[in-house]
């Protein structure tokens, strides 16, 4: 998996990962709560409902439910924030 920016709260899987596998980051050892396909995102820490999902060091979306550490982060638990950030944050 890849963490693009130190401020990110998600990592990206660069191969298919399975439930129960562990990944290692400065956030400590993270046990995956679900299968994470290649290219999909993993929560490096718990992201509370309403908080930003951060990738590339900037907000890319907002959690619609509280996302647990090690969970899959995608359209089922993240809302787009284009209208909010298009003109700058």
């Amino acid at each position: 998996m890849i963490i693009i920016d130190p401020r990110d709260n998600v990592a990206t899987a660069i191969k298919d990962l399975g439930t129960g596998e562990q990944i290692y980051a400065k956030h400590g050892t993270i046990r995956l709560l679900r299968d994470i396909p290649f290219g999909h995102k993993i929560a490096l820490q718990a992201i509370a409902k309403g908080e930003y999902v951060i990738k590339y060091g900037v907000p890319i979306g907002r959690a619609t439910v509280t996302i647990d550490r090690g969970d899959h982060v995608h359209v089922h638990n993240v809302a787009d924030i284009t209208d909010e950030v298009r003109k700058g944050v």
Partner: protein
Amino acid sequence: MEFMGYRRPDGWVGVRNHVVVVSTVMCSSTVTRAIADATGTVPITHEAGCLELGPSRDHTERVLEGVVSHPNVGAALIVGLGCEQVKAESLAAAARGKPVRLLKVRDVGGTEHARKQGIELAQELLAEAAGAHREPAGLHELTLATQCGSSDTGSGLASNPVVGLLADKLVALGGSVLLGETASLYGAAGFMAKRAASHEVARRIIEITDVVEQYYARMGKSLTEANPTPGNIASGLTTLVEKSLGGVRKGGTTPIQGVVSAAEPLPSRASGLWIMDTSLGLGTHITTDMVTGGAQILAYTTGGGNPVGSALAPVIKVTATLSTLEAMADNMDFDASPVLLGGESLQECGERLFAEYVAVANGKLTRAEELGNGLFAIGQVPIA
């Protein structure tokens, strides 16, 4: 740094020496294709050229003038009907000293006569263009266009930053780079505005995305309803902001010098990174805008795999997705997958792409050129 290119009478340098047959209007397309088929020249046909108003008309004229003036074009035959909005004589003026001929279907007795005369004229032009030879030119004289299609996570993590390194290197050498796809950079406009060289440029970056917002709002729609696409989502992209941030990485990291309209040439002596406010819609419309704006070569990143090139410019297809390298092996030019899978740093991969870019500038054919996949189409510019 130098490469070997074709110096045109106006001083501009090309990386190819095409003879093109250009329709001024859709109505002369059949004759244009017949002439090109018979002579091995490049047909430029489209669905515009008449009954257009305002920004659409201006755009069509810029695109067609951009074909004739393009440095990769050594000579042009312009084929009109005779009553259309786009004037063959005006297009001929865009040749700026290159060999050019005019043919109007109505003036020469209809389709069959036009085809026969056109073949003779195209053969004359082929002979004249054959007199052009490659000579040393500077890489600073090149404009790189950047584009992406069928984006996946590998685009944002590997292919786009690798093209971004090529862009930064070309800018450091004094060249120019175009970043387009207004509807794709939409979600990152605020972040891009922070990189603008002036407040005015920052304002323009936001403004071109305001126009896109208004365009969809008139239909009662938002761009985010269609973007990211189902394919993007399946590959792991969650929001338009995420897709846009990954997409703009292909322009590199240098300050944004300005914003130009679709198919508008950069100001003379311009260099650095520029944003082009390209057409909405299909990739070929955007390719056509950036190439007719003067880019000699386009670097195209693709996740899922896209085979489409340009009628005028080499298109280097870059992917970091192994399954695409296998599924579309004869369409891909550059493998950026070692960045993701190990074996190569981003920097090393960027150097390898730079070497490929220079080889293509010197004449190495891209896959889309070998396969005859050079398309051309005039799109619709968003109107406020």
